[in-house]
């Protein structure tokens, strides 16, 4: 990399930190940015910078949300704020990207809760490392009647679903698991909308 001028090498080093980008791809992107119009490149740089100041996690569901502009604003995402959503259902997903995938299926009209991970004995990740406490207090303090567990069909996703069922059922709330239209080892984020909407339709009680 020492063959590149310093600013160029610096950009390549930064780009290489991104997932799926090796040195060759990084160099290709950097050359592309050199050729682009100056405004376009600055626009990209600004969008990246603003991402972290203007995006935040929804303080209710922990999905992606625009950051509160004033301190008296709630810091809630569009879904949580929408009065038309069914407030008796919560769909629990692993990551913000999964919430977006379920929204895309257009089948589901309830609320969400994003755990930010899964229970994984092999990685030493237990329930305390996830947003499960927050989920329980939401379930206890509102009119929730059904929790739909839409974790991935993997061993970790199953472990998480089983744990949630174990702790939520005693609260008198129905816990369902989305149907196994998805293959074991699959990934919600990469599942097509039709399969996903069928899976939500065919959920079963756990």
């Amino acid at each position, binding site marked *: 990399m020492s063959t590149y001028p310093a600013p160029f090498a610096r950009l390549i080093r930064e780009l290489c930190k991104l*997932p*799926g980008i090796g040195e060759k791809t990084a160099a290709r992107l950097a050359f592309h940015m050199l050729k682009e119009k100056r405004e376009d490149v600055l626009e990209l740089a600004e969008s990246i910078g603003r991402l972290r100041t203007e995006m935040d996690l929804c303080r209710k569901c922990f999905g992606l949300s625009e950051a509160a502009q004033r301190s008296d604003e709630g810091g809630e995402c569009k879904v949580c704020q929408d009065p038309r959503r069914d407030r008796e259902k919560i769909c629990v997903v692993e990551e913000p990207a999964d919430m977006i995938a379920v929204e895309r299926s257009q089948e589901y009209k309830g609320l969400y809760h994003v755990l930010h991970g899964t229970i994984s*004995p*092999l*990685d*030493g990740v*237990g329930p305390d490392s996830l947003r499960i406490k927050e989920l329980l207090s939401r379930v206890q303090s509102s009119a929730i009647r059904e929790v739909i567990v839409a974790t991935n069909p*993997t*061993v970790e996703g*199953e*472990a998480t679903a*089983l*744990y949630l069922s*174990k702790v939520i059922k005693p609260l008198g709330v129905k816990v369902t698991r989305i149907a196994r239209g998805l*293959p*074991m*080892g*699959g*990934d919600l984020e*990469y599942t097509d909308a039709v399969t996903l909407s069928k899976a939500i339709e065919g959920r079963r009680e756990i």
Partner: protein
Amino acid sequence: MRSPCVTPAIVLRSWPFGESDKIVSFFTEDHGKVTGIAKGAKRSRKRFVNTLEPFSLINLRFQDRPHSTLAFVQACDPIRLFKDLTTSLEKIAYASYLVEITDGLAGEREENRRIFEHLREGLIFVEENGPSLSFLTFFELRLLKLAGYQPILEHCRRCRRHFQEGSQIPWRFSPRDGGVLCAPCSTFRREAIPLSGEALDALAELQRANRILPHHLSLPSTVLREGRPALLRFIQFQANRELKSAPFLDAFYSE
């Protein structure tokens, strides 16, 4: 390139790699532990469906790649997917622990068919019978023996004296000495774990067994209470790493 190998294998675990691939480690019947890269496994719904999840028993086809320690995973066909292992948290915790300690004690590419058999039978046992700390203790002792780390439990590791029946002074299990030490020999091994005569006898008997028998399945609670931490510490010492799934056994303790 060498020609591909085909062998039954159990998936130990997998990690996402880049946007679409997975790194997977297997315990194979013919080649011991094999770690490889499964291209497209994270996204493709056709090639590796159902077969790269932990505990799956599959037929693995892989090829070694020049200049790489990672094999190229060509195909995985299911033999037995242990679907009932994921029907309870306790079973998942136990199965995770079995694959984690096997992974920790087995060397890469060290052929050991008996370890493969032992792990396969262990997973079948947990799937069919549910969690049992007594079974787990048997599994650990036999795995240690098959992997060449059998701890000395019959006599003091240093002076070779045998435990005096009826003696009330406990001996101590010392992971770095590879077995038990009598009371005088363990004076300077304060970190070693006390084991009563009852626990010593029961563990030594279990260690001699080649397969689990019904009376092994109800080890007295004193034996479990003393024996479990001793074996856990020993396995962590030999594997030279912390066993992440171990706390999950306590959390869902249900024996």
